[in-house]
């Protein structure tokens, strides 16, 4: 009876311990845990190791006189080349160039017989329109009169190029030799018109910390705005001296004539909105120095960095959207400090009297002292010559948007861009690098979000965030797949969706609702409950264990 009473007590202690462990602990765990929706972690991890493949389609068309009739029979053929480059341990790039060779049709032959390259380019364009991201290279005989003497390659306004066959490739060589001769040159054309390895690595700068070779390429990479689904363009006329100058600018007409065609062309890349304003009594932050030799005021290149700050306070941010703002300021110096010229680093005068600030915008100084006449009567009415101003701003806009006009290799002739201010292939080039940049940015955002959520367990993950993350991951996968297939338009579209969804998830305010309780406070709350509950259970468990051990020892002793 004595033993069974002990046994009952032990059983009771054990069952209470069991209830606490089986029911209490899970209940406590469930009621205090934070809600964390499921995230596609494995897919995000896959994206962290980015394998980008860029496919470019080139159509090479042989004009009459470049291949012999026997060779012509073999000609419709396709060559594929792949090139793989590892950027760092997580990122690898693969370029796939698919070149299809064919001979020119009769209509194309006619077009190529036009007197000048520009006309040939135009009539070739009317024949067929190549899709976004692909190129057509017409191989013309050495004797062709389309191109000037020292020019070997002509790059048109659309997606076509004319390539003059080299002098060493006279008729009589085999087709293999011909192709071997053409292939590196087509690659060169491709690098000018579609993408080059340098562009793509620059676009990946968000993912990869790389050390560029020289200072200039850093400056080039830093100049353009980051890829964004939209931009706000603001033109501001700064009139620091409204008492002497009454300025009139036809900004509405100028935007319609000069800026809008470019933006319409760029609409697949981003949305743009345009504003303009006039700011009075807006001063530059630097006092210009008087140069007696020219009887003019000058701004040094070194001091230009300080010009913007005081003006920026007046510019005002855009209340209606959160897209990056491109500022273009037209500064009309006051009558006392006029004329004002910007001086370059080597003390020479800057011909446009303008400068730009990377990822911010451009400033142009517009001197009006020529309008004063012999006996000026203030205030002077001044009509600003918008053609001159917009020429400068347009060039700056192209730079800031990343439409780079990098110098072509020797022997290349690039057609002047037409009224739109942007050739088709320039747009393609921009789209290639923007797609890659978007993919890079979106993957970094998503992986760092996943990392953050993984590290801090107290963050609540709501369903809408999980949904945004999933859709970003899906769009990213689609974008990568479309890049691989060479569908540039779709790739850009999906990469934009990916970047939007990933940013939305990353900056969702609900992620800030961090259920953060410091550990000491948690202990302060739990100890009054847990300590008196757990100490008896632990003590009786210890007692049971020690008794059991003693009994075994006794049994052992009995056996011995």
């Amino acid at each position, binding site marked *: 009876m004595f033993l069974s*009473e002990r046994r009952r007590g032990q059983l009771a202690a054990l069952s209470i311990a069991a209830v606490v462990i089986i029911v209490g602990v899970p209940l406590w765990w469930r009621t205090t845990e934070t809600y964390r929706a499921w995230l596609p972690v494995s897919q995000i991890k896959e994206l962290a190791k980015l394998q980008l493949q860029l496919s470019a389609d080139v159509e090479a068309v042989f004009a009459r006189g470049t291949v012999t009739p026997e060779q012509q029979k073999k000609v419709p053929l396709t060559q594929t080349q792949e090139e793989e480059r590892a950027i760092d341990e997580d990122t690898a790039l693969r370029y796939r160039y698919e070149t299809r060779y064919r001979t020119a049709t009769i209509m194309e032959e006619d077009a190529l017989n036009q007197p000048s390259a520009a006309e040939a380019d135009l009539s070739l364009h009317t024949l067929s329109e190549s899709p976004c991201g692909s190129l057509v290279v017409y191989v013309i005989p050495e004797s062709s009169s389309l191109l000037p003497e020292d020019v070997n390659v002509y790059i048109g306004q659309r997606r076509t190029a004319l390539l003059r066959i080299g002098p060493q490739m006279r008729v009589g060589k085999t087709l293999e030799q011909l192709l071997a001769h053409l292939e590196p040159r087509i690659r060169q054309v491709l690098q000018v018109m579609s993408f080059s390895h340098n562009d793509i690595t620059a676009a990946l700068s968000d993912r990869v910390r790389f050390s560029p070779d020289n200072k200039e390429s850093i400056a080039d990479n830093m100049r353009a705005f980051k890829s964004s689904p939209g931009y706000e363009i603001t033109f501001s006329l700064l009139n620091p001296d409204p008492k002497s100058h009454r300025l009139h600018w036809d900004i*509405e007409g100028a935007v319609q004539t000069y800026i809008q065609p470019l933006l319409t062309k760029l609409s697949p890349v981003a949305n743009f909105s345009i*504003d303009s304003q006039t700011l009075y009594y807006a001063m530059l932050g630097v006092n210009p120095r008087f140069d007696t030799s020219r009887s003019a005021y000058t701004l040094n290149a070194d001091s230009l960095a300080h010009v913007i700050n005081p003006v920026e306070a007046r510019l005002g941010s855009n209340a209606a959207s959160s897209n990056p703002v491109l500022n273009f300021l037209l500064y009309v110096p006051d009558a006392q400090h006029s004329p004002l010229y910007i001086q370059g680093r080597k003390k020479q005068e800057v011909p446009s009297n*303008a400068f730009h600030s990377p990822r911010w915008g451009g400033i142009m100084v517009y001197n009006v002292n020529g309008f004063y006449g012999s006996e000026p009567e203030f205030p002077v009415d001044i009509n600003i010559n918008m*053609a001159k101003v917009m020429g400068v701003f347009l060039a700056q806009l192209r730079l800031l948007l990343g439409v780079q006009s990098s110098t072509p290799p020797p022997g290349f002739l690039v057609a002047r861009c037409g009224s739109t201010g942007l050739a088709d292939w320039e747009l393609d080039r921009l789209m290639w690098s923007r797609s890659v940049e978007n993919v890079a940015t979106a993957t970094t955002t998503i992986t760092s979000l996943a990392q953050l959520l993984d590290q801090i367990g107290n963050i609540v993950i709501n369903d809408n965030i999980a949904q945004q993350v999933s859709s970003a991951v899906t769009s990213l996968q689609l974008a990568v797949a479309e890049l691989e297939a060479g569908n540039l338009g779709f790739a850009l579209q999906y990469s934009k969706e990916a970047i939007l969804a990933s940013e939305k998830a990353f900056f969702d305010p609900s992620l800030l609702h961090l259920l953060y309780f410091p550990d000491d406070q948690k202990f*302060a709350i739990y100890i009054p409950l847990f300590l008196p509950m757990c100490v008896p259970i632990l003590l009786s468990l210890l007692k049971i264990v020690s008794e059991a051990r003693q009994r075994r020892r006794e049994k052992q002793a009995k056996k011995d």
Partner: protein
Amino acid sequence: KGDAAAQKQAEPAVLQPTPQPKDDFQEELVVRPLHSGDIYASFQFRTLWETDFMRGNKVSHYRLFPKSLGQVISKFSVRELHISFTQGYWRTMQWGQPYLPSPPGAELWVWFQDSVTDVDATWKELTNVLSGIFCASLNFIDSTNTVQPSASFKPLGIGNVTDHRFLRYATLPREIVCTENLTPWKKLLPCGSKAGLAVLLKSEKLFHSSFHSQAVHIRPVCQDWQCKTTSWELRQTLNVVFDLHNSGQGKREWSLFKMFSRTLTEACPLASSSKIYIDITDNPEQFELSPATSLLSQAMVLGDRRTFSVYDLTQQDTFGNCTPFCDMLRPLLHAERYVAGYGLQTGEIHTLMYNHHPYRSFPVLQLDSVPWYLRLYIHTLTVTSKGKDNKPSYIHYQPSKDRVRPHLLEMLVQLPPNSVTEVTVQFERALLKWTEYTPDPNHGFYVGSSVISSLVPSTVAMDTNSTRERPLFSSFFPCKEESSYFVRVYTEPLLVNLPTPDFSMPYNVICLTCTVVAVGYGSLYNLLTRSFQIEEPSPGLAKRIANVIRKMRGVPPL
């Protein structure tokens, strides 16, 4: 960084006829010596722009109109926007009527275009954007302090949409106004604070005053009397009352330099008119203005014919000082409000409305927006004038919902001549959740001013021609009848104490509960697990001592 594109263009000297600007800017300062010896200065800046914000056209080009506000109007489809920031309370009985009334704290009311589908979401977004523009805590405006008045706030501009679904009204009586609100306000002016009357706006002086109020009003107005073309009007006003008795040397003289510690040297070159009006109606012979001006102007303001001497800043002028002694027209309509009752459970709001007109009675619209944590007992609402029950002819009451929306009470009450009308309503104080208390709960909770709007009978004939050139300060509220004028009066905001708990209580409760649970559990556990056995009763004390002695003696124990 030479831009090649610029080089190709030659520079032809284009001299086209300059286009007529479609916008216009006016500035004005009214100085009125008050009966109490204080000086009331009221600045008004008006920008008119003939444009259409609601066009689908994305491109927008601003000249005098500030870009930030223009973008707000077009993005949120705003039809009318009125915002005011006020520090201090306007003492109507001592100072008379202000040109533009405003309640203490921040007030915002907006009429949206009828094309807006989700008014509440737009309102929320708009308040957030405005709080960024004006550096104010307007982002604290949410559904719990927003109401849709049915009658009190009619559109002041053109347009006949009066569906109050598109109206939102909110006040933040707690808002403190300071320099950080003044700077963005000044930035909206075309000349900034660099030229014109705005030079005088120096914040050290402006905020060292008895009353300071700054406001922005945007509305569409008619361009001509036929209203063929409409334009947008942006009116920025700043009213300030200086107490020269305290700050001055006791002399009853003032100058612009003494008030603002700045002087005027030029008008804003962009302004089409820039004028200073000095109110010399009361006892003009006691005024001595230097420099003297021959320009006199009469204007009908707030039911009174007043005489002003006018300084046109577009001519060259400098300023001296003058000595005022004057008698004030008693304001015909006046209101005050207080909380009565004791204890922390119930209370009573008393609103007193005074009609000082000797023989005319007139109706007033009273609007009250009371937060949900004061539970109004609407059945206790009584309106009495001269000891008799005065039944309101129109009552619009919207009960509150806890944590969702406030009470809204609008009444049309007829005020008998020369009387005080008292409106009382009882309320119960609600208990808040412990996270809903402000950081300083013992300071009390603000209840916004009650708004009393009325057409007050006028002693002089009012000017109803809306297109005649009039000073800005007399042309804000549209005047439709000759015999009356529109007045809006704000009462004091109320400060109500709510029952506040001991804020360490949650932790104490947790600890106490845990201890009680642990003690109960402990005894239960003991009962369940201890094994009980009969123990030999221990030998008595005498026996034990005997045993010890026996042990010492070597005798076996008992």
